[in-house]
């Protein structure tokens, strides 16, 4: 049981995914996000080699639909997997194997695919899509975050009499470089989506500071000084 969204920012070409699930440490199983290549996400009963392979095939120039055919041919248990693929141009392919348990399905919309299994119902996918589409001008990480919150608020995982909380969640966004722009995780938590939002908001406060330490370290203030300034600003804003 998991719900996730893969997406692309048409303006910037950034690519990413956001995911929440009952399983632990789900962010440790999200290798399939590659700058200027695409996104490949396998879940339900995941085949861990699918995502790196899918990315290599996209990088070779295959379209998502053909990559999916190859993944199907390469995996005797493809019927138990749920897979979504998007390339840098926004082409997509998605598959929900008949072996996925509970209510399971996927749905495409502009620059995104929402997918999930063990869900309350199709309204969870609709909640994710609505969240993603709500503010198309926002940075991709916020659109993805809002999508997952939309999925959660639409009921998330489990049948109506057995709701399953989100115990882990993650968000990952790449831009043009080899390393991620945003890569945030909550691995074991009782309300992982709430915690992911908290960490994301905190990360955004540090993002420029951390980038500056990389590109222009001689001008960087010590981090404990930065944190003090941040705290002072927060106190002022609360007042």
């Amino acid at each position, binding site marked *: 049981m998991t719900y996730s969204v893969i997406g692309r920012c048409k303006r910037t070409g950034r690519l990413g995914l956001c995911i929440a699930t009952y399983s632990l440490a789900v962010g*440790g*199983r999200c290798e399939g996000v590659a700058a200027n290549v695409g996104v490949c996400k396998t879940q339900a009963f995941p085949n861990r080699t699918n995502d790196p392979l899918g990315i290599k095939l996209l990088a070779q120039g295959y379209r998502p639909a053909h990559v999916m055919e190859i993944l199907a041919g390469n995996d005797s248990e493809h019927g138990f997997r749920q897979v979504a693929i998007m390339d840098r141009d926004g082409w997509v392919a998605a598959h929900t194997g008949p072996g996925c348990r509970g209510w399971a399905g996927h749905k495409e919309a502009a620059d995104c695919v929402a997918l999930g299994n063990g869900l309350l119902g199709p309204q969870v996918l609709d909640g994710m899509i609505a969240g993603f589409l709500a503010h198309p001008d926002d940075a991709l990480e916020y659109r993805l975050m809002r999508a997952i919150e939309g999925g959660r608020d639409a009921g998330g995982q489990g049948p109506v009499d057995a709701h399953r909380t989100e115990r882990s969640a993650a968000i990952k966004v790449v831009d043009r470089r080899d390393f991620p722009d945003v890569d945030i995780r909550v691995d074991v938590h009782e309300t992982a989506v709430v915690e992911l939002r908290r960490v994301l908001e905190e990360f955004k406060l540090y993002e420029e500071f951390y980038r500056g330490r990389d590109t222009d370290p001689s001008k960087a203030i010590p*981090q404990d000084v930065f944190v003090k300034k941040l705290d002072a600003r927060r106190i002022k804003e609360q007042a």
Partner: protein
Amino acid sequence: MTFTLLARCPKTGQVGIGIATYSITVGLYCTGLRGNTGATMTQAFVNQGNNPLALRLLAQGYTPDHVLAELKANDSNHEFRQIAVIDRLGRVAACTGPKNRGWAGHVIGDGYVAMGNVLAGKPVVDAMAEAYEAAPEISFERRLLAAIEAGRDAGGQVGNDGHLAERSAAVMVYGDYDHAELDLRVDLHDKAVEELRRTFEEYELYRGYYRERSRNPKEAMPQYAFVQALARKQEAAR
């Protein structure tokens, strides 16, 4: 302000990292592990391009010393970086640039580097190395965790106004595959090393179940049933 144990396991050939720091979301920066290739980490004032570049150079066959020389030549701010590089044979190179802040340094051992900056002092990296070497019979990931716990216990990080908490931490291990064998993170927490240990011990209970579920989905029991069985087992053990 970070302390790290980067290593290659001589028994399994796995590469891994244990890391803790005052900065948040440090796992985001740990992009330098690849099975059968090597391990690398740039910290202090991070150059995020270093890790992917160093892995490519290792894959090309450069020695760690030569990789380090290339990273230096490629970066006008090299003296601000703290870097470790280990290849698939366990050969090691490391450097702590003169513009690292606070007490900063590294120790090199057999197939590993303990390094840190803005630390309480050299005892922190010595304690990490010692803990990593202390119990070679336990699993590689447990050795990495023990190392950062020892670094914490030896005083960890010290900033302008005294001790700095570990606010994020991570432990990662790569083996034969393109994907991580273990990849656990704590991104924002008051006691990130303790929380990482808690996360690890919890995840260990699920690890075999997750692996088997991927391999043989037909016969996998639902996760909720697994969780209930786990709770019963823990109750009985008490």
